[in-house]
């Protein structure tokens, strides 16, 4: 007879596993490709397409750099996360970079002439997959970088949800296993082996 906790643990384990199935595949596959930069599919950067264009713009009314950049993006029909610093060149050029999985835009606007030069780098599907793997809009190494595009927020939330979901699946899985007396000893061996292997790496013993 299963206890209520075990029944709910099973339900949760199955439901979370099914909901996150495709998210998990995406991150597993992109993780493997990221770890093998010499694989052909990882060579998406060498196969990138670069396009340049010059478009007419009007000077944004906003005085704040970030808002002015957003206004320019609207004029240029560019969507994405403003990444890195917004620059003002001595020539008066207003420059910034926009990133979204698949595309990187370098924008240099000359308000005096009313022109913006857009250099676009486009990568293929594997490139999109790899960029999605680490598309958070934030960096530990650069505390000034803040997420500034709402779809990035959704993606970050998906990553968080997957992480929490996986931990819950681990806990429910361990609970379900522990209630099986027949598999307790052999399961303990598998769990301990995994734990000790990892502990060796984390602690720096190896």
């Amino acid at each position, binding site marked *: 007879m299963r206890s209520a906790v075990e029944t709910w643990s099973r339900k949760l384990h199955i439901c979370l596993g099914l909901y996150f199935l495709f998210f998990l595949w995406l991150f597993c596959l992109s993780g493997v490709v990221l770890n093998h930069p010499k694989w052909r599919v990882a060579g998406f950067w060498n196969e990138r397409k670069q396009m340049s264009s010059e478009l007419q713009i009007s000077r944004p009314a906003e005085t704040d750099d970030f808002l002015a950049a957003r206004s320019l993006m609207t004029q240029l029909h560019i969507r994405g996360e403003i990444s890195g610093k917004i620059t003002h060149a001595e020539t008066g050029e207003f420059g910034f970079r926009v990133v979204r999985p698949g595309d990187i835009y370098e924008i240099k606007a000359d308000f005096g002439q009313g022109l913006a030069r857009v250099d676009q780098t486009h990568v293929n599907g594997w490139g999109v997959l790899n960029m999605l793997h680490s598309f958070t809009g934030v960096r530990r190494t650069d505390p000034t970088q803040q997420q500034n595009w709402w779809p990035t927020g959704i993606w970050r939330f998906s990553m968080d949800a997957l*992480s929490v979901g996986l931990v819950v699946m681990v806990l429910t899985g361990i609970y379900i296993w522990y209630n099986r007396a027949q598999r307790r000893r052999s399961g303990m061996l598998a769990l301990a082996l995994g734990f000790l292997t990892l502990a060796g790496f984390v602690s720096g013993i190896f």
Partner: protein
Amino acid sequence: MRTQFNFLTRDLHLYIGLFLSPFVVLFAASVILLNHPDIPLGTSIESKTDQVHVDLPPGLDRLQGMERLDRARQLLRQAGVSGEIGFVRYSAEEGSITIPVSKPGYEATVVVKMDTGAASITERKTGFWNSIIYLHKMPGPHLANIRGNWPVVRIWAWLADGTAWLLIFLSVSGVYLWAVLRSERHVGLMLLVVGLISLFGAWYAICG
């Protein structure tokens, strides 16, 4: 026959899942830390800078790639430093060579003066949380020609790949078991579809 296959699948799902559990927790925790840079990771302890004398292996300034790395490794052995070597930088102007070294929870920079062989070693203990972030990112896509120059990182690369492939196996075997055991059939099917729609929805919002 079919029952035997089901039992085998269930056992594999169980034991592989248990072995992988700590790895999954590590990757999940590091994702949260990478996603939220405002979460503090504890203090890094900068240890003293040591000065030692080393015999310079020949060609360190001229060689490139793995050959330069082999020479740098010889030098590190003399300095008593071990770990994954990063991008080795030679400065003719300063007459020195800089060797960054890292391993989980530890970073060091060894700067060697080419004329005297005087090496200064700056070490830093980065702590537990940084070590799990380090493992999450290793070996990664950068410095492809020299990455995995420390055997521990090479072994870790195997384990990181293994974790990804085995997670895919666990998910496939899990779906199989769910299908044959006929539990949570309707809710499960609905969640599978909702999960797929969520992924494509997020994908479309970003890339569409």
